[in-house]
């Protein structure tokens, strides 16, 4: 993280000369992210003035899917990401179900929802402990913000009785990578979650038991009970993680109010929703109905206003730009499944052709494309998911989760620690720390969504609705499908075109494609770049060297996964 002095165009600019720490911070390679990312930020010493996020690698999954047997896209494209391969496989399955006009049996949908909610638990938990928490660990805080560290050492942690850290400094010690208690406790806890996913999806990463419209796991009483015992064994971890992040965030806001604006951007989100009800059907005509029945709802919010909750509208206005990415565009078709026309740049109407080049911030600089919704810059993170959930009035009746309009109340059952209601409240602003808090509460939300569906699974077993698969009938002629779903991080969609049983076009947009996107056709920065620009430099380091910790905190709050993003 070298810092080079910024060339000042006007030497008489007194305010600039007082800020010797300004310059370019090159976080390339950026570490603790999925895949390869390089971020370059410019600072004037008090805030970040410019930022470019570059997806640094590419494998060509959209091309690798071409000409294959339509059914094979599930095991092929799911391998684009090792963190959320199950989500990609499920998304591909939905695209095929639409294309083949299949309706999976309730048990298959239930098993899918359980496996997928569990995968979200894993993604949230691993992200928080392994990628995000080290930015707040003792050695980093002491080195970059000694005054903050002094306060942390004397600040009592209000949730000590839950998470076991007496002071905020203890908590920060726990966040030390590789050796801290939080880090080392998360690995075995995460392993248990990996076991839970494997029970339904066979294998994690890269599930081996899914086929279009089908979850092939051989079910027995043992499947549900073994899953159930592990879920119960995980509930205390959930309480601890919520309390731990609440304490850290409250302390940071109190100790230095600049944390309020760290990584701030408008409350503009896009979500496709996920975790289907066992009775739902996934069709192009019925997208809205399907979306409403999802436990995590679809929707688009622009500047805090909900633009739509209809999944069909979430889908219809997506466009993808490659003006600053290493791709050329080939246009192909301009209509959707019904024959209605789609906007220019919609993923069903084009394909991206790789065009490797040197990084050039005026021209192409990223392997990530730039998706937008109706021209708006939108992020997709657990924060948006919880926000859209809290404000919905149609959350399915259940025993654990309540959406109040301004918060989500989640009942986390008893284990060694007592039954606890954790409440996530809509924050006043969208910033780095609120994204992390949503990740923590996202564990509770996903876990109890899995529990809700597990109870439905038991009910299906009692009533004998045990079918898990339906026969495949592959259309001979041209066909189209779109899978709209979510990974733990957020939005995930696959667009498929096929002919004579083979793939003719495949397009993927995931949460990190949105979040880590470069500038678009109009030169507007992507959400992560937007959050970085104008974000404060809180680091107190003396001398003229900045470590870039403030930028790192903003970047990690998006949990960027360039495997998904660039594919």
């Amino acid at each position, binding site marked *: 993280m070298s810092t080079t002095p910024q060339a000042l165009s006007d030497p008489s600019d007194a305010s600039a000369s007082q800020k010797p720490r300004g310059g370019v911070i090159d976080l390339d390679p*950026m*570490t603790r992210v999925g895949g390869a990312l390089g971020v370059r930020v410019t600072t004037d010493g008090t805030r970040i003035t410019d930022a470019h996020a570059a997806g640094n690698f590419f494998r060509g999954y959209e091309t690798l899917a071409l000409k294959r047997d339509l059914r094979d896209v599930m095991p092929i494209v799911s391998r684009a990401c090792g963190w959320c391969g199950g989500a990609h496989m499920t998304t591909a399955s939905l695209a095929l179900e639409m294309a083949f006009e299949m309706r999976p049996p309730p048990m298959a949908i239930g098993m899918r929802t359980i496996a997928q909610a569990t995968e979200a638990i894993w993604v949230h938990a691993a992200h928080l402990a392994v990628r995000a928490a080290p930015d707040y660990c003792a050695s980093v805080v002491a080195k970059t913000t000694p005054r903050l560290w002094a306060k942390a050492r004397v600040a009592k942690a209000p949730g000590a009785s839950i998470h076991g850290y007496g002071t905020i400094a203890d908590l920060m010690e726990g966040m030390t990578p590789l050796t801290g208690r939080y880090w080392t406790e998360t690995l075995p806890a995460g392993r248990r979650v990996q076991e839970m996913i494997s029970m339904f999806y066979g294998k994690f990463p890269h599930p081996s038991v899914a086929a279009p419209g089908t979850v092939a796991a051989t079910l027995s009483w043992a499947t549900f009970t073994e899953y159930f015992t592990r879920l119960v064994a995980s509930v205390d971890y959930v309480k601890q993680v919520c309390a731990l992040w609440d304490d850290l965030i409250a302390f940071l806001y109190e100790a230095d109010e600049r944390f309020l604006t760290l990584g701030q951007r408008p409350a503009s989100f896009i979500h496709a929703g996920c975790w289907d009800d066992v009775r739902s059907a996934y069709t192009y005509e019925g997208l809205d109905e399907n979306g409403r029945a999802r436990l995590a709802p679809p929707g688009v919010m622009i500047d805090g206003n909900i633009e739509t909750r209809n999944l069909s509208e979430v889908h219809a206005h997506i466009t993808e730009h490659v003006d600053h990415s290493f791709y050329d565009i080939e246009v192909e078709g301009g209509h959707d499944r019904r024959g209605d026309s789609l906007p220019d740049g919609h993923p069903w109407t084009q394909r991206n052709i790789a065009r490797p080049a040197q990084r050039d911030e005026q021209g192409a600089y990223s392997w990530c494309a730039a998706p937008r919704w109706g021209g708006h810059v939108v992020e997709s993170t657990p924060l948006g998911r919880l926000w859209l959930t809290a404000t919905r009035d149609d959350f399915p009746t259940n025993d654990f989760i309540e959406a109040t309009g301004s918060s989500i109340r989640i009942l986390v059952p008893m284990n060694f620690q007592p039954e606890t209601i954790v409440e996530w409240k809509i924050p006043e602003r969208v910033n780095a720390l609120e994204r992390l808090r949503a990740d923590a509460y996202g564990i509770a939300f996903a876990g109890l969504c899995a529990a809700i569906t597990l109870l439905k699974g038991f009910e299906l077993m009692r009533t004998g609705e045990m079918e898990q*698969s339906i026969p495949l009938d592959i259309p001979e002629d041209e066909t189209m499908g779109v899978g709209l779903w979510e990974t733990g991080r957020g939005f995930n969609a696959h667009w498929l075109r096929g002919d004579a049983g083979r793939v003719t076009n495949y397009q993927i947009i995931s949460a990190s494609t949105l979040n880590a996107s470069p500038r678009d056709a109009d030169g507007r920065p992507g959400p992560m770049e937007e959050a970085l620009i104008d974000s404060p430099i809180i680091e107190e380091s003396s001398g003229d060297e900045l470590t870039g910790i403030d930028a790192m905190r903003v970047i990690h709050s998006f949990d960027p996964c360039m495997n998904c993003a660039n594919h």
Partner: protein
Amino acid sequence: MADTAGSRPSYDPQDPFAPTAVRSMLQIPSPAEAGLRMGPIEKIYLIWLAGGSCDGCTVAVVAATQPPVEKLIAGLVPGLPRVELIHPGVALEAGAAFTENLAMAERGELDAPYLIVWEGSVFENDSSGEGAFYRLGQDRDGRTTSSTEWLSRLAPNAAAVVAIGSCAAWGGIPAAQGNVTGSIGVMDFLERDYRSALGVPVVNIPGCSPVGDNFMETAAGVLLFLQGMGPLPEFDELGRPVWIFGETVHRRCPRGGYYEEGIFAEAYGEKECLVELGCWGPVVQCNISERGMVNGIGGCMNIGGICIGCTMPGFPDKFAPFYAVPPGTLVSATTSRVFGGFTRRMREVTQQDKNITGRWEGKDKPSGWARFQSRPTKSAKLVHKLYRAYQNTKIGN
């Protein structure tokens, strides 16, 4: 690399953002760790690099328990050296400080030997300067470096190069039909004559993703050998650990017995043998059916998934279309239907006899669970009698 000492950046070992290797040199083993030391090697660097990867192998290794990664990096596994992990997924430092770890390894400045673990395919022509498929930092002169370039620079002096996952071992999915990145496997890239500093060719742990413990166990086995404790692990002609990949999935499959008796699942979710749904288990070399995926839980056919051959060099194209029945099944499954079907019926007759105590012979069973009482037919009784008479001739024999 021509390097002048003066141009090297200096790092403070106390700085949390200094390269891992710089910080590591100050680290003193904890008393617990020192007490567990049993061989000449105290520490080894594990440099984890990636090409056309999905991080899935990393995720799989996190799930390993033999030993778990958090114990290995804390140096708390008896007999094994502490593993100093240099992995972009966990490193605290970013940017030039991260790539400095690699530069230090290249210059021979590490205070312990280093292993390279490579995840994902290798982008063969990724040093051309025309734009890379995997950019990994910059050299001191400002030139962009690719991860492929770092592999060529670090492989000659590595203690060993381990290719984890099928992409690294054989090329995998990025190297399949539609390969636009020039993806190949590590062996293809380093070529046949490659030997590590310890004289070892590339070690391959295939699988998409591999079972995490297959990697951990092999790594631990190699380290125990280097410590003078364990035997030399055995590898096959493709550099795979023999005890893991020497047998087929089918030989260890929990559903193999169904195949023997000629019973096949007709729909997903059924409990029988999966070959007629497209399972390639009978020819694929893998141990997941025995080991499971995470801590003994999961696994493809253990749970209900067909084998799509993800550990094999021919994956994916030679196994596609995945959901069609493998052609060889026509002969083998028919054979097993005919002979296995006969064997199964004979076994059912014997099993019926073994479900009756001596007291119940010729009577109803005393179980309240029995809704109706099935008694052996006369011919079955005769078979039982003959069977037991023959069984009794073995007494003392």
